């Protein structure tokens, strides 16, 4: 299995200075944006994006062309780049921001041309200070060259970009929470409907919110055509995608591949297998929110639909391998603690439920579990996401609460023995 290099080409060919505009331009950078602005039309660009069949790379996998098509008419419209990458296991936007910020800016220019947008924001999580500095430097370079500001490339188009730093809240990766945060409010998700960003987004104006990787793919798609992009990967999961591989693997890292291979092949070839030749006990196919797969399910294909058909999600493309020695209760506890910490507190099932789950799992993990705890765990999960089905039923405004249920249903469905073994049988209540 080999990587297919589109998005990471420039950074690989020019490792030492790929972040600078001189290097980017030497490799034909900004040529696509220039040609677009001078000789294409917004409709053509939208058609190319639609025919590429690219789906959003942030987690939900919504078709990007459809999203762009939803954008309501208004004099003021905004583009917001979601660079609040915080899903545990994910570090693919970080490399795109740090090492190829101009590709993102070129993608923003083309996107704004297509959607008739004059102001874009790049919302970068606060902990990504170094990536944010690189992006800010790139934005300043682009202004100096006249690629941002007034009459870009001598065309009629004006565009400003502001790089905005978040302040440590995972929930701001949820698009409506991100918009609240960008408006200087608490990062609490808004109700949909009526607050669909494409209609009532930033400042209640129509707003496109797209992931870094999605928009970084735009220059390639426009340069080579949507049809070419559509030929890569498989139907429903076209193009390439950067997967972040971590956990107990020999070669963790970001790998750009066409979707369609199996997780097992991915780990054995690019990941060079599991450390110390151990076996996989379980793995997370798409970030901490995703239900786990067992080690005997490594033949599942890495596509959005295959993973969904197996009751999980490809999510943000974060693959975390856990070997045979992993304490899965501790692993689940780490994930549940994460969601308990990151719950914004608006919805009771999530605010209270995640805290309860954390407390009960902590009790079990430290050997103080009660025999009633397993049913209690499932009961709390059922209150957050009734029926514990996948995709989850919601009792909350956003999917954060149900995400905390994922590791617990995985434990209970496939590794119940490990939980039961930790509960002292003498303590019967």
């Amino acid at each position, binding site marked *: 299995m080999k990587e297919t290099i589109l998005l990471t080409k420039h950074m690989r060919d020019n490792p030492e200075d790929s972040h600078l505009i001189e290097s980017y331009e030497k490799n034909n950078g900004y040529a696509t944006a220039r040609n677009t602005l001078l000789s294409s039309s917004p409709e053509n660009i939208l058609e190319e994006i639609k025919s590429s069949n690219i789906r959003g790379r942030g987690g939900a996998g919504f078709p990007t062309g459809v999203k762009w098509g939803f954008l309501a008419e208004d004099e003021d419209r905004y583009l917001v780049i979601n660079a609040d990458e915080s899903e545990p296991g994910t570090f693919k936007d970080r490399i795109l921001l740090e090492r190829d910020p101009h590709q993102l800016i070129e993608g923003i220019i083309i996107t704004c041309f297509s959607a008739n947008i004059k102001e874009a924001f790049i919302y970068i999580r606060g902990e990504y200070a170094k990536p944010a500095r690189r992006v800010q430097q790139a934005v300043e370079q682009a202004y100096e060259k006249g690629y941002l500001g007034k009459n870009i490339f001598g065309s009629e188009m004006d565009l400003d970009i502001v790089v905005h730093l978040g302040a440590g*809240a995972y929930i701001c990766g949820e698009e409506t929470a991100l918009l609240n*945060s960008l408006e200087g*409010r608490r990062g609490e998700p808004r109700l949909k409907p009526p607050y669909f960003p494409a209609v009532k987004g930033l400042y209640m104006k129509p707003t496109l919110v797209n992931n870094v990787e999605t928009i970084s793919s735009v220059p390639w798609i426009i340069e080579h055509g949507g049809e070419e992009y559509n030929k890569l990967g498989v139907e429903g999961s076209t193009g390439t995608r950067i997967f972040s591989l971590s956990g107990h693997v020999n070669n963790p890292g970001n790998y750009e591949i066409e979707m369609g291979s199996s997780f097992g092949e991915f780990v054995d070839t690019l990941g060079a297998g599991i450390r110390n030749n151990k076996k996989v006990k379980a793995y997370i196919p798409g970030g901490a929110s995703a239900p786990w797969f067992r080690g005997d399910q490594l033949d599942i294909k890495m596509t959005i639909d295959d993973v969904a058909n197996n009751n999980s999600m490809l999510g943000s493309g974060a693959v975390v391998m856990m070997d045979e020695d992993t304490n899965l209760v501790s692993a689940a506890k*780490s994930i549940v603690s*994460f969601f308990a910490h990151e719950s914004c507190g608006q919805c009771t099932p999530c605010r209270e439920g995640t805290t309860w789950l954390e407390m009960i799992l902590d009790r079990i993990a430290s050997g103080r579990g009660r025999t009633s705890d397993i049913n209690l765990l499932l009961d709390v999960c059922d209150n957050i996401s009734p029926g514990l089905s996948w995709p989850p039923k919601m009792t909350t405004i956003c999917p954060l609460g149900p995400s905390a249920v994922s590791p617990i249903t995985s434990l209970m469905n496939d590794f119940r023995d490990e939980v039961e073994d930790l509960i002292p049988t003498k303590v019967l209540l």
Partner: protein
Amino acid sequence: MSWDEKLLKQAKKIIKLYPQKRSALGPLLHLAQSKDGYISDDSISVISELVGITEVQVKSVSTFYSMYKQEPTGKYLLSVCKSISCEINNSSEVIKKVQEFTGLNNNETDEDGFFTFEAVECIGACGGAPAMQVNYETVEGLTAENAINLCSWLKEKQPDIVVADDMQEDFGGVKSFDWAISDSTGATSTAPGFQTLKTTKVKK
């Protein structure tokens, strides 16, 4: 108002970046963090006037986000990751050793105002787990021993600019990806080092 002219000028520059004043609230809170090492009541009152919202509204936003500290921090904010990829790569040992070295519990600052310790959620360094940040500059591929060595080094050298590449070279190991670009810019406070905030400098 007790922000000096220079800081106020910078605040006004930041406000101008946005279509609505209130959007500058986040960056202004980072600015306050860089000034005092926490969000002081004084800064809250200054910001509320600058943005045109009440002090309670500022406070309500400030307490929502974990990077705005409600109590003074030390010169170095040590943030060790405890999320899943780090957890299964022994971050608990790193946390334990750093806590022993500094004598600090979670979210505590030592008496001489040198270190603040916190165990944090995912910092996006999962391929280089376990990882930590010092003033939001990342070090990846840590061992418990190297984490201690890093703390000792901070104690001894007391650098005014914290540079990720320096720390990574001396105390780091496996990285999430090749950093490739050599970089000597870093953070100058416990707010993230970022040009717009003037909280970053290039180490000479």
